């Protein structure tokens, strides 16, 4: 019998250094794969890996965040935090997938988008926004799978998809727990409290109707049996793509619109608001 894990336990498992990453999925699931590099504008960002491969006899576009396992690899991959170049590489390959009618698999595993002067100067906000806008209209099926950390806009930039799945101990949040605690309470050491309060676990998101399905992990986490976990993820993705591929494109786009359109918690009153103050007189 499994013992109940806290939200903070799950944060730790989702970040476990041995947890299967995007390239592990590629290695286990693909019988052929080519990684494609660069955004054709500035750089090749190693925090996102992308390419075309074949899973169960079917050609697919795979785009995923990639964290490192040691310091050297983490320096190279910026701890899985993409810069605008990474998102623009993904964008290029989303268009590529549409052109060649390849379904898209997005594997989400990032603490968030890179916060640096360099990224800001090259339009981090715009890079994320552009991806969200393009994924919204992409005329090919898209599936995203949160395999580790789903950190904010940095995750969403490859996460606007027809289906959203999560591994049992993965998380998805509006900001990483440390950042949430810093923003809310100016105290990043309260990350464990934030993890609980902000409802970031796969189970929370499923309950909220945002995530379509959860794939169970072996007791203790996916890193204790990567091979089996990855295969189960692959099965769900490929079943889902088969189902989505049968839907006419316009219907698929309409359903994608509705999927996100209904997300929100609000009430409708009988009385209108009346803001304070007076309009200024503009010349």
């Amino acid at each position, binding site marked *: 019998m499994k013992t109940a894990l806290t939200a903070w336990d799950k944060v730790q498992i989702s970040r476990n250094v041995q947890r299967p990453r995007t390239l592990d999925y590629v290695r286990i699931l693909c019988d052929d794969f080519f990684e494609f590099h660069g955004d054709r504008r500035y750089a090749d960002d190693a925090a996102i890996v992308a390419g075309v491969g074949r899973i169960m006899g079917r050609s697919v576009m795979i785009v995923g965040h990639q964290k490192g396992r040691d310091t050297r690899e983490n320096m190279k991959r910026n701890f899985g935090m993409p810069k605008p170049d990474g998102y623009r590489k993904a964008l290029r390959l989303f268009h590529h997938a549409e052109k060649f009618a390849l379904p898209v698999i997005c594997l989400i595993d990032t603490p968030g988008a890179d916060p640096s002067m360099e990224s800001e100067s090259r339009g*981090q*906000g715009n890079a994320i926004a552009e991806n969200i806008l393009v994924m919204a209209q992409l005329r090919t099926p898209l599936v995203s799978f949160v395999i580790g950390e789903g950190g904010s806009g940095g995750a969403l930039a490859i996460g606007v998809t027809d289906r959203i799945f999560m591994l049992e101990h993965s998380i*998805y949040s509006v900001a990483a727990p440390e950042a949430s605690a810093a923003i809310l309470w100016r105290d990043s050491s309260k990350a464990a*409290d934030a993890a609980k309060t902000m409802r970031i676990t796969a189970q929370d998101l499923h309950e909220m109707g945002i995530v379509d399905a959860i794939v169970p992990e072996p007791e203790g986490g996916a890193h204790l049996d990567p091979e089996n976990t990855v295969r189960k993820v692959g099965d769900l993705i490929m079943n889902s793509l088969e189902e989505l591929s049968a839907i006419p494109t316009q219907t698929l786009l309409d359903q994608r619109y509705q999927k996100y359109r209904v997300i929100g918690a*609000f009430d409708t009153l009988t009385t209108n608001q*009346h803001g*304070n103050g007076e309009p200024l007189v503009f010349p």
Partner: protein
Amino acid sequence: MKELFRRAPKAFTPGEQTPDQQTPDNMWVKCPSCGELTYVKQLRDNLKVCRCGNHMRLSAVEWTGLFDSDTFVEHDGNITPLDPLNFVSPKDNYAQKLRESQHSTGLYDAMIGGEASLMGQPLQVTITEFEFIGGSMGSVFGEKIARAAERAYELRVPLLTINASGGARMHEGVISLMQLPKVNLALARLGSVGMPHIAVMTDPCYGGVLASYASVADIIIAEPGARIGFAGRRVIEQTIRQKLPANFQSAEFLLEHGMIDMIVPRNEMRLTLARLLRLYTTRDTSAAPIAADV
């Protein structure tokens, strides 16, 4: 999500505006930038722009004066936020925070939406209220932009968004995050019928607002000196452990780096928007010129 709708709504009624909240006209206001004191009335006559050029923040209601008089009609003014996470922490209580913000601003949430005309040209508009939890983007915010964009799509009119926001509403968690695609999906639909989205970025525009609709608007206008960015200055300084240049993330910095189309001072905003709207919506070459045409 259906579960959330079924949950018994908490009644959030904004408080009555009390007389002492209205600033008398004879009061001085100190410019946070240069420190100079100006009469409230004089400052209002100057659109709350200090003599030093500092554009002080406007409330959502103050911005409605941008449109032709009495043409702004609010839509969706009856949508109120819920507390989907039951957000309570030792330091922070969302339900209470909402009540306080509703009391101080007179609004149910950080956004008003509606229709208006600008020098005779019809459009749909949304305006943020920064005083309401930092203009943060939660369910009501997202819903109102989506509805405004959908009305603009149905009516084939442009959409204008006037923005000041610190980012996503933390207290609604990942539901706030999912407002980003919700809004962009509606904007994509508007774009498909050839109607423009014009974004005005005022101080400040950060996080979720920038990473969704504001930075992919067809035309991006910023006010002078507005701070605009994805990650906050403090976060970046902590990450790189050094001080950032003073003009970093200013409207002028963004213009230099190719991220926005133009910087327009407040007293030229109305005419600028009217001229732009005419270029995108009037195909009749004999259309009457706009006053003070250049």
